[in-house]
């Protein structure tokens, strides 16, 4: 993929630091929790705990990508989080079967002050606005226009 890095505003500096910091804390919290759950009680609810760990790893990827200005990785990571929090959040609220009750995404992230719900939107907005800042490239890291 062509790199829009040269022409767009870096995602990891200025206000982006705050976003990366919050992503980092959530990544740390969710991954540590996921590892703990998988390591100590995987058999109780394999789907929930593996999902928990997966969520944590996606936050790690998003943190890394935003910090190092890798848009083509950051976009999918942030979008996966949005889909994840909305899907798992909805399923946990309507309570389909014994769906995971103990992931960062459960109850739309209520256990984490709804930060998991707000963060993807902030991430998308930030990627979009920094991508437009000084750029003639598309924000999603797509092909750079000729010229």
């Amino acid at each position, binding site marked *: 993929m062509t790199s829009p890095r040269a022409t767009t505003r870096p995602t990891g500096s200025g206000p982006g*630091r705050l976003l990366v910091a919050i992503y980092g804390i959530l990544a*740390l919290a969710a991954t540590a*929790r996921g590892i703990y759950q998988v390591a100590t009680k995987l058999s109780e609810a394999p789907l929930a705990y593996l999902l928990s760990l997966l969520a944590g790893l996606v936050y790690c990827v998003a943190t890394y990508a935003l910090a190092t200005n890798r848009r083509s990785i950051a976009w999918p990571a942030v979008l996966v989080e949005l889909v994840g929090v909305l899907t798992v959040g909805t399923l946990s609220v309507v309570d389909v079967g014994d769906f995971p009750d103990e992931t960062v995404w459960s109850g739309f992230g209520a256990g984490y002050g709804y930060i998991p719900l707000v963060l993807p939107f902030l991430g998308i907005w930030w990627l979009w606005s920094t991508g437009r800042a000084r750029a003639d490239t598309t924000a999603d890291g797509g092909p750079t226009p000729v010229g």
Partner: protein
Amino acid sequence: MIVPVALLVGVLCLALAGWATWFVVLDRAVILRQLWGGAVIEAALVIQAVVAGVVLLVGDHDVDAALFWGYVITQLIVLPIAAAWAFAERTRWSSVVLLVAALTVGFLEFRLWQIWETL
């Protein structure tokens, strides 16, 4: 866990968070003196971890070890990262990050205390 130390950590975190907030308002970057403040908190955390380790080894107190040490390690990581960023980002945003970091450490201290008390 030693209650006075936990309280001290909580108060210091709030103080550092307040100081950082003031710098956000003033539109200033983190200064070295604030990092020394962070270092004092970090030192208290290390002492607390060592004491907790000793108590768990020789005392009769018991905790969910994986959970407890997971929180301890997480808590120890946060301030050093914020400090590293303070050098890299010389704008008010380093103060915002320090503010978030201080509040996070304070919150983790509260959770640690909860974990210590239950079980």
